[in-house]
């Protein structure tokens, strides 16, 4: 059975034809005697990973603990879309997460995973990250293929325009962009700003911890970035309102950064195709899930400044799993081709 795997900074998401599994990509190291800590965690049904005399709580539980106990440091196996170079315990945790999401392969199973495009604003190579993930997935017995994250969004959102248009994946660690023409990628790149960048800056401006900001962003019923609601929030003048206002400001700055860099990259690249007809922009990824996101995007978008004529801006259906589903489509087609 073909599988698609979205290897995100914040979530790992695996998709098969009948199941979607999500795992928060975070962990927390528990101090204390290993056997005692393990017994306690088992009793409470909290998932953990043990490696080299350390016990790590993994996933949503770790995230919840970090919010409750502000002294606990939430660790991230990935940062800015790539393996976190400062996190020594990242690999065993990633290995365990991938193992749980995919399981062992049956004969001839294909797994397509996503990789980020080369970032334009940091000096990092993608190849090591790519090789580590490939090695881990292969270890579970899969035939492994990769596709770029934004292209996976294109496979889900640009099929009605013959895979022509602009695909944007807005993740926690980075945003990936692909300009596609008839299924070919004319231009692709990533910027190392995403949801985490919004959270960090909001946290610094408001004095609220980053884990708390992330939680408000993901769970708050009052968070709505659409302009009409924004005014109401502003008048309330509460602590939460300050956070929400800051979130909106930084979302605007993030979209502006993305669109400005897309314009600059497009103008600087040779042999980009001409788009005689207007094409859509399709957006997916967890950072785009916040209510009213399209309003902020439309506010920042200026057709007169943009190098490609745009017909519409679409927020893809089930944006959180779109990358995993794009990878799944590719894996299914590879398996069908192999059978033929």
């Amino acid at each position, binding site marked *: 059975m073909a599988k698609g795997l979205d290897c995100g900074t914040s979530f790992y998401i695996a998709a098969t034809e009948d199941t979607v599994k999500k795992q928060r990509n975070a962990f927390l190291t528990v101090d204390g005697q290993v056997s005692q800590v*393990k017994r306690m965690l088992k009793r409470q049904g909290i998932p*953990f990973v043990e490696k080299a005399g350390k016990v790590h709580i993994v996933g*949503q539980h770790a995230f919840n603990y970090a919010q409750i106990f502000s002294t606990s440091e939430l660790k991230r196996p990935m940062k800015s879309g790539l393996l976190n170079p400062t996190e020594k315990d990242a690999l065993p945790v990633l290995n365990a997460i991938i193992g749980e999401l995919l399981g062992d392969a049956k004969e001839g199973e294909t797994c397509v995973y996503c990789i980020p495009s080369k970032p334009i604003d940091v000096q990092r190579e993608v190849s090591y990250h790519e090789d580590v993930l490939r090695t881990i997935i292969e270890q579970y017995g899969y035939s492994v293929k990769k596709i770029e994250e934004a292209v996976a969004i294109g496979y889900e959102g640009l099929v009605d325009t013959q895979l022509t248009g602009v695909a944007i994946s807005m993740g926690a660690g980075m945003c990936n962009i692909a300009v596609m023409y008839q299924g070919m990628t004319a231009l692709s790149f990533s910027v190392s700003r995403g949801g985490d960048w919004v959270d960090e800056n909001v946290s610094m401006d408001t004095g609220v911890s980053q884990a708390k900001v992330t939680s408000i962003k993901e769970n708050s019923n009052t968070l709505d970035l659409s302009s009409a609601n924004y005014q109401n929030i502003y008048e309330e003048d509460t602590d939460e309102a300050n956070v929400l206002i800051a979130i909106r400001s930084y979302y605007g700055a993030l979209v502006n950064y993305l669109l400005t860099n897309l314009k600059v990259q497009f103008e600087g690249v040779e042999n980009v195709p001409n788009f005689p007809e207007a094409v859509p922009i399709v957006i997916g990824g967890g950072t785009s899930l916040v209510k009213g996101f399209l309003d902020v995007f439309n506010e920042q978008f200026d057709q007169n400044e943009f190098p490609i004529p745009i017909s519409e801006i679409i927020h893809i259906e*089930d944006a959180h799993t779109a990358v995993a589903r794009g990878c799944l489509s590719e894996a299914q087609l590879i398996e069908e081709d192999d059978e033929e």
Partner: protein
Amino acid sequence: MEISNTFIYASLILWQIGFIVGILLKLFYKPNEKKFVPTAVKSIPAVEVMTPKVQPGHIDVEMKKKIALQKPTTSSIKSDEVIKGKVSTQKEKLKQLRRG
């Protein structure tokens, strides 16, 4: 006495010959215009010329990385969220597009 007279005559004759030759040379001899140039010429040092060279492009070589898998000793991870049901994809449309 005879020897000294002979010597005097010979000496006079020689002086007369020398005198006449001197007058003749002054009248008819024109010095050559050609100037002798010293053969030791100052050598001018060679000037380095930047020859246009084609800079060869770099060749990327595949790097064989040894990645330590670092398997966990024990793991009790369960997925945070499992959504059961048919997962909708655009596979059929993609297939049509690829097969033209």
